[in-house]
């Protein structure tokens, strides 16, 4: 408090002092007849000289910063294309620095050299077509080089991955990353956001499609709908009372979940025949860290559950947005193992990292995943260890409960009130109802 008071007093005193100075200044101007627009040669020269001083400090600080931070900021690129990107950077830096230094030099030099002198008249020089043509064509040709080199590199980076590229899915949600390895078949199982489930019985964080997952999801949705219905219809008897707005909201939620359940049921229909949906997903495994094999090309597929995220691999010089409702992709090939990089950076604690680089919510800056690059043997060992911890299986739960959903999307659907399962699942519902109550508040 005292501190604030002191600051306040200082500010007030400073304001008074400045006001007095200004008064003095205006009196002085009146006496000397100096006008604000008059050019005082001494002051003008001072400003002109300061231009040169500034130029020196400006360039000096640039040199200092390049020397201190220049190449040491991020370790050298750890991916194959990253090396190309770095090379392209260097070419561009040459042009950028040439333009930056020469133009800024000319600017501040002219600003100094052609400072006002009363005896001189400026050179009347309004235009010169030849000059203007020259400095249109020079940047144009420099840019042509930049564009051509840039697009060649861009096409390499975004081109088709090679056939032996391993496919990994990176799944983003607020505020963590999950990796899904495609397993031995190098094919990811299908996925759908409607199957995403955090239930204890059959968690399916990524919404991977298997026949079993579909059944489980229908079962869960059914339970949710029924528990909501229970709450709504037993309103008078319930100990809890809901506001009209809450009741309305619950009813709408129930109807919505019912519609989603129907869409899932349609999926069940779609995948009911002979197909490879289960096989594709069977060997997928998920992990909370990313382990890559050196010199192995990877093809990453990105999905997001909620908002736009961006998978940013600073050390591999690459990134790609993860957009809800869309699949994006990216490829790269790591070229140094973590151990090699630790040696290069002389930092025994160094680790690669995957960050989020698109504003995604309050914990945006905490959204990260550890990335390790190792040899094939190290990878196999890691994989076995992870498997031992049983965190990897995508569809490793017990058999789904029997569901006898009436697929009533063909017939008379009446907004979710006409189901008869209430009786047959009474016990389970009671249980789920309890859980749901906990979840919703």
């Amino acid at each position, binding site marked *: 408090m005292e501190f604030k008071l002191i600051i306040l007093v200082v500010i007030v005193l400073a304001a008074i002092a400045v006001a007095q100075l200004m008064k003095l200044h205006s009196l002085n101007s009146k006496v000397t007849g100096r006008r604000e627009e008059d050019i005082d040669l001494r002051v003008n020269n001072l400003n002109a000289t300061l231009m040169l001083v500034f130029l020196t400090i400006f360039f000096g600080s640039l040199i200092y910063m390049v020397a201190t931070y220049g190449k040491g900021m991020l370790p050298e690129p750890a991916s194959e294309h990253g090396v190309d990107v770095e090379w392209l950077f260097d070419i561009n830096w040459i042009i950028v620095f040439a333009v930056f230094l020469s133009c800024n030099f000319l600017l501040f030099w002219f600003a100094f050299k052609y400072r006002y002198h009363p005896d001189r008249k400026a050179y009347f020089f309004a235009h010169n077509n030849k000059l203007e043509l020259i400095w249109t064509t020079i940047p144009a040709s420099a840019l042509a080089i930049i564009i051509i080199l840039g697009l060649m590199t861009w096409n390499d980076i975004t081109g088709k991955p090679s056939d032996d590229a391993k496919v990994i899915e990176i799944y983003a949600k607020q505020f963590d990353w999950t990796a899904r390895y495609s397993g031995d078949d190098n094919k990811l199982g299908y996925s759908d956001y409607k199957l995403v489930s955090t239930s204890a019985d059959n968690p399916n964080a990524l919404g991977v499609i298997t026949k079993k997952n579909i059944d489980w999801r229908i079962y869960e949705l059914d339970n949710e709908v029924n528990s909501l219905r229970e709450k709504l219809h037993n309103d008078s008897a319930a100990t809890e009372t809901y506001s009209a707005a809450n009741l309305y909201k619950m009813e709408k939620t129930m109807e919505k979940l019912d519609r989603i359940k129907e869409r899932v049921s349609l999926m069940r229909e779609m995948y009911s025949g002979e197909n490879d949906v289960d096989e594709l997903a069977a060997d997928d495994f998920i992990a909370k860290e990313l382990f890559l094999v050196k010199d192995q090309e990877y093809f990453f597929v990105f999905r997001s559950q909620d*908002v736009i995220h961006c998978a940013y691999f600073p050390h591999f010089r690459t990134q790609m947005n993860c957009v809800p409702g869309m699949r994006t992709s990216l490829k790269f090939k790591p070229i140094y193992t973590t151990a090699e990089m630790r040696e290069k950076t002389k930092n025994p604690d160094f680790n690669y990292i995957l960050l989020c680089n698109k504003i995604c919510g309050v914990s945006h800056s905490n959204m990260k995943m550890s990335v390790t690059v190792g040899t094939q043997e190290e990878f196999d060992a890691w994989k076995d260890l992870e498997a031992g911890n049983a965190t990897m299986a995508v569809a490793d739960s017990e058999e789904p409960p029997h569901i006898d959903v009436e697929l009533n999307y063909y017939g008379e659907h009446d907004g979710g009130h006409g189901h008869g399962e209430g009786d047959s699942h009474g016990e389970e519902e009671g249980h789920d109802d309890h859980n749901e109550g906990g979840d919703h508040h």
Partner: protein
Amino acid sequence: MSAAAHTDHGHHHKESFITKYIFSQDHKMIGKQFLVTAIFMAVVAVILSILFRIQLAWPGEPNSALSFFLGDKWAPGGILDRGMYLGLVTIHGTIMVFFVLTGGLSGTFSNLLIPLQIGCRDMASGLLNMISYWLFFLSSVLMLYSLFIETGPASAGWTIYPPLSIYEQTIQGSGMGMTWWLLSMTLFIAGSLLGSLNYIVTVINLRTTGMKMTRLPLTIWAFFVTAILGVLSFPVLVSAVVLMLMDRTLGTSFYINDAIVGTEILEQSGGSPILFEHLFWFLGHPEVYIVLLPALGLTSEIVSTNARKPIFGYRAMIGSILAIGFLSFIVWGHHMFLTGMNPFLGGVFVFTTLLIAIPSAVKVFNYLTTLWKGNIRYTPAMLFSVGLVSSFITGGITGIILADSALDIAVHDTYFVVAHFHVVMGLSAIFGMFAGVYHWFPKMYGRMMNSRLGMVHFWLTLVSAYGVFFPMHFVGIGGAPRRYYDYSVYEGFDGNQYEMIMDLNVVITVFAILGAIAQIIFIFNFFYSASKGQKAVQNPWKANTLEWTTPVEHVHGNWPGEIPEVHRWPYDFSNPEHEEDYVLQTTPLKEGEHAH
């Protein structure tokens, strides 16, 4: 415009206090209203930026400035709340881009200078002009109000990408705060459109006798093209905003496809967040030039006047403005290289974006040639103009890196981007605005600003501005993503990098605070001089354009008598055929004199 029109304006209505100072329809007063509002908004935005810079430099350390401004709610124990951090960043960006550099810059100087420099009594529609300001005022109030609501201001970034900006479950600020943001922006755009239409119509229709398009000062050309950009691009943002309001309130799915927000599964299907990005950047990129062109126009005039030399390549300068204006509409995709947009399309945007560098380079070379063999007088306005040319060079060339998708993939959304656009559009536009205020202050208030204070203000501002944004490039290349509350993620991974980022962040914040303090000098000078400054003479800078033929005291209708006729281009400085080193546009050509 005839004498009849003049009497119509001059004698009919006696102005009351309210019609003169508040609901004024006089373009000069409206210009001043825009300026003062923008200064106030800028002060707010700068304070917001200092608050989040404090967090970035000394993360998690209790700070009395934070608790003073944000209280226990948003800075419990003097430590900035994570949500509020994003709110500060969002509102700082919004206010600076739209309220200060669009409304403030264009609104002030287009209003003040268009009628004065083309020679007409007022804007084509004084009423629309007045409504334009009051919409701007109202939207400013709403935006400021959104800082004070219970759930905090909009905090999804000034680019408000959905779904983050749509669902409260994903971030608190997307509740009520976002609603106010959208309403405020809708009003802002409405006001901006009314203004722009007015500027276009006025420039086309109301030029005085002899004021051919090729005799217009470059300021007017810049305002004219800016207004066209605004009219063509802002409506797209309105439609984006309206679609977003529908997604938020009616459950439509323009921007939503298969998402789960919080624990709630959404039904919305078939839309795309990328659609919003396209719509947003279709405004967003021309917006960069809406901000930049007026500043370039103002400084062209100031550089020429104070170097006592004609602007070099007048027609090339006009050509560059037009080329930049046109190209700015076909480059928006360079903000979206990494959104999953087709890489080939990305390549096309690389090409168009880099083309913009050509007219920009021409402008820089023309500035340099204008200074060459000049006779440079350093008024504060001239100093800021030199600052603008420097920041335009420095910020412009880093754009070459970002426009190149193959390089953008490494530095996209890092502090390199923040540094780039702050230098090229933030600094340049602010420098241009300062230059404009110092130069045309005598036309606004009939008084002079204190030039010594102006010089101190310039040098402190220049040094602190580069002190802030130069290191920021290095932070960005070092892999620091923007909109991060802190960089602790790097701590356990790459210690070297963490230390580097932290070191530079402290430097940046110290310079930011210095820069903010330097602005107090300006604000003091501005308000002090407006009431107590030295009385101005009619043409203090010995410039050529028409505004310096008006009387010092404002008259409604600008010229007490006939509107002057124009006989020459505005840049006859140090013309060897004339004794004086300036020739007013109203001076008839001498016998046998060659006109430009």
